[in-house]
């Protein structure tokens, strides 16, 4: 049986409005389990409860009822925070520090012993591809670079679980792809990653499992494969067929008892188009 990294049971979170106790329910009896060494996507529109779930896991919000645990340790406790790293949606860091100074600060705050500190900082800087800019002040960084440094600070104390709130929000597709690749590497190292996003296409290629939330409730949860595959339906992509060839294929489908639901030109995603264009230009320049 796989180890459980995150378990959430019957989690309810109400936010009071005004002094008389009128409540707005942000999470409504959420149950969720995330296995270790998975990339787990928390999906949902704005206000669906993704960030609230994450804040409860971090101990920044107290549940109104229900409970949560990280590797069996109650959420919010020092032990739970020791095994998790967090990247907020819009990371605000101290602009006057360099990336290396920032990581040194977070390493100290995380209680990393002095002898292990510098080595670990270099390691995570390399991991997120920021070694060359490590001496620059954060105030001069682009959004994508800040996100990578944010990821580095989340990793600096070598946590088992990474909680990333909209890690690619505002980052260009190239940066998004780079973050995706870092996350895959981290998974390969045995880390568990919980990430929330409303950019579904990005999640699709990255996550092992996803959960969809709406209005604080869990709508569905499972592996990406299982959730996206439509049972009893197939997709064919053909090339070089003329009108008679297409008619023959359609007739063959009908003859074998199938139903053709639609025919149209094959499309690639914008993200794929963008990546190809950037890569081609890079190759031409070389």
């Amino acid at each position, binding site marked *: 049986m796989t180890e459980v990294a995150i378990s959430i049971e019957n989690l309810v979170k109400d936010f009071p409005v005004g002094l008389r106790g009128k409540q707005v329910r942000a999470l409504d009896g959420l149950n969720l389990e995330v296995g270790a060494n998975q990339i787990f996507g928390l999906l949902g529109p704005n206000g669906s409860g993704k960030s609230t779930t994450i804040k409860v896991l971090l101990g920044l919000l107290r549940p109104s009822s229900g409970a949560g645990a990280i590797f069996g340790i109650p959420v919010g406790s020092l032990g739970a925070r020791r095994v998790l790293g967090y990247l907020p949606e819009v990371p*605000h860091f101290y602009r006057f520090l360099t990336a290396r100074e920032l990581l040194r600060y977070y390493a100290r705050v995380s209680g990393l012993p002095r002898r292990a500190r510098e080595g670990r900082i270099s390691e995570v800087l390399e991991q997120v591809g920021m070694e060359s800019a490590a001496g620059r002040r954060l105030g001069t960084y682009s959004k994508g670079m800040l996100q990578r440094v944010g990821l580095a600070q989340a990793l600096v104390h070598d946590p088992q679980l990474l909680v990333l709130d909209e890690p690619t929000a505002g980052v260009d597709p190239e940066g998004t792809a780079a973050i995706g690749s870092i996350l895959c590497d981290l998974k390969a190292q045995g880390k568990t990653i919980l990430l929330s996003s409303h950019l579904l296409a990005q999640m699709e290629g990255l996550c092992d499992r996803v959960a969809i939330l709406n209005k604080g409730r869990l709508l569905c949860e499972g592996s990406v494969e299982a959730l996206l595959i439509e049972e009893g339906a197939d997709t064919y992509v053909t090339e070089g067929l003329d009108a008679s060839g297409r008619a023959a294929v359609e007739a063959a489908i009908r003859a074998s008892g199938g139903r053709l639901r639609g025919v149209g030109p094959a499309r690639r995603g914008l993200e794929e188009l963008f990546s190809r264009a950037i890569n081609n230009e890079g190759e031409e320049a070389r």
Partner: protein
Amino acid sequence: MSGRIDQILAVCGLTFTEAVRQKFFYIVVLIGCGMLLGSGYFQQFDFGIDELKFVIDFSFGTLFFLGSILVITAGTQLFYSEIENRTAHTLLAKPIRHFDFLLGKLCGVQLLMLLFVMILCGLLTGLLYLRVQALPFMEGDVLVRYGELWLYGFLQWARFGVLGAVCLLVGSFARSYLYAMMVSFFFMLVGQLQYIAQESYREIAFLPLRWLVQALAWVFPNLQVFNVGDQLGHMQAEGLPFLVVLQLLWYAAAYILVYLWLAWWNFKRREL
């Protein structure tokens, strides 16, 4: 334990670095130095040795007044900005205790105030030394007791510690920076003036008002006990018994702990 100390030192160091990068600190220090240097203006009045008392009064007042403004502004800002900018989210997601975070913040602010006190006391010592050399006085006369200038600075630093802890307490429940600052200033004012209430409540005939006034004395510390400038520094000053100095430090330390604990109690329960 050393790990915890390092965590506190890390927060303290960053808070101090952030504080000394702020223009406001330099403005306050410059105003303070300007006022001290400007006290040379008293020479025009040909006060003789009374001029030294004037300069000491003036400098102590400057230290007290500007220091109070600096500690409340910096203390509130350095703590509240962590909440407002959400850097506290990233930080408190790390395995650091809320209390250690607050203690680190307070230590950072206190380090800033120590720098402020040392700059002003250093300048005052230098100014008085130069002035004493220029004044005619009898041999053997001690016109300025330099050690006591620093003792005053140290006692004010202890008082700034109480105010810094108050800023953390207010910041732990405040919903805006402006609110936090205003309440902290109000707190200082009441602490500074509550001795009047303490002394006059017996004369109030209207009972509920009398209880209210009496309650003030129980809720707010008497910050006026640190107003020891008249007893220190110049040749006519009576000095302050060592035991009283120790008790003043104990009074400040105890209130710092109390406010820090209350700040922690509030902050731990605060939803970020």
